[in-house]
């Protein structure tokens, strides 16, 4: 069949993908039976197509999947909740401790070891609590397994 290989090649992609009209499809079939070059081109394209379909690409990790599916509204709500609870805890107990210490320090009957020891204990607890909170915040930001369900 008279044909131009260059023109036929343009149809081969469509033929391979089943996107040609019936007329064009038949034309390609006749040409590829007669023309070795066109038949070879089609064969190469078919082979490449099959190989591309089997290429292995990486997948998302479990942690990335979970992070992607997280609801930002719920996430923000949880964060605000945490801040309010921690903030409320600090204000409530801080005020309570302040008044207890204030009363105790003003009282002349309170022994000296209590006047020094109790404030030291409360201040120490405050420092420990702060350092634990800072550690937890750092860990939650850097732990790659935090989203993995066990």
């Amino acid at each position: 069949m008279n044909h131009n290989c260059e023109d036929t090649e343009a149809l081969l992609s469509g033929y391979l993908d089943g996107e040609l009209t019936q007329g064009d499809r038949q034309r390609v079939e006749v040409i590829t039976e007669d023309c070795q070059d066109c038949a070879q081109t089609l064969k190469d394209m078919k082979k490449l197509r099959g190989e591309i379909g089997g290429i292995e690409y990486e997948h998302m990790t479990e942690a990335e999947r979970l992070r992607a599916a997280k609801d930002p509204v719920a996430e923000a709500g949880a964060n605000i909740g945490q801040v309010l609870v921690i903030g409320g805890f600090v204000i409530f107990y801080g005020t309570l401790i302040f008044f207890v210490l204030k009363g105790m320090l003003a009282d002349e009957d309170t022994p000296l070891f209590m006047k020094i020891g109790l404030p030291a204990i409360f201040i120490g607890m405050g420092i420990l609590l702060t350092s634990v909170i800072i550690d937890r915040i750092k860990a939650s930001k850097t732990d790659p397994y935090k989203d993995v369900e066990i």
Partner: protein
Amino acid sequence: MECSPAIALPVGILSEEKMNAPHAENAQEDLESLSDHGFALALQLLGRHEDAADVVQDSLRKLIHSGQYNAHRGPKRPWFLKVVRNGALDMLRKRKPEDEEALSQLKDIDPSPAEVAEQNELKTLIRQQLEEMDVAQREIVLLRDFHNLSYAEIAEVMEIRAGTVMSRLHRARKELRQRMRRYL
């Protein structure tokens, strides 16, 4: 593509599906499949795992949490791939020159013949050649041959006329065949 572990659906989405267990399972599968295809396309365009994951996360958040995911009618895959593609192309445009250099250096590492033989030759070579091709040519070949999209779906993803898909695909395949000629 390989099946991946289930992901937890975000709270408050897919409310209709949650009312019906089989539908919910389908929705979960849909989302996993979309994530897999979206990630593969982003990786194919960007070449870097972390960037691809970021693009998929942004796309999912944008669509699911805005309610567009539930509202969309028709096939979700081409529609989602279109969003991922736009995100990936945006990221490509914003990339610093040194990032591009780093990536091109990676591509330039030519494996020795022995290494080529050891690797699953043809697929590895095709992947390398695809990565060296122009993004537009690479993506149209992969959308068709890797993601198995129809011409109409490719047109939707790439926002081009359906009539131009065949000619663009032909040019891209021709280029790839030229590059792979000595290995076929």
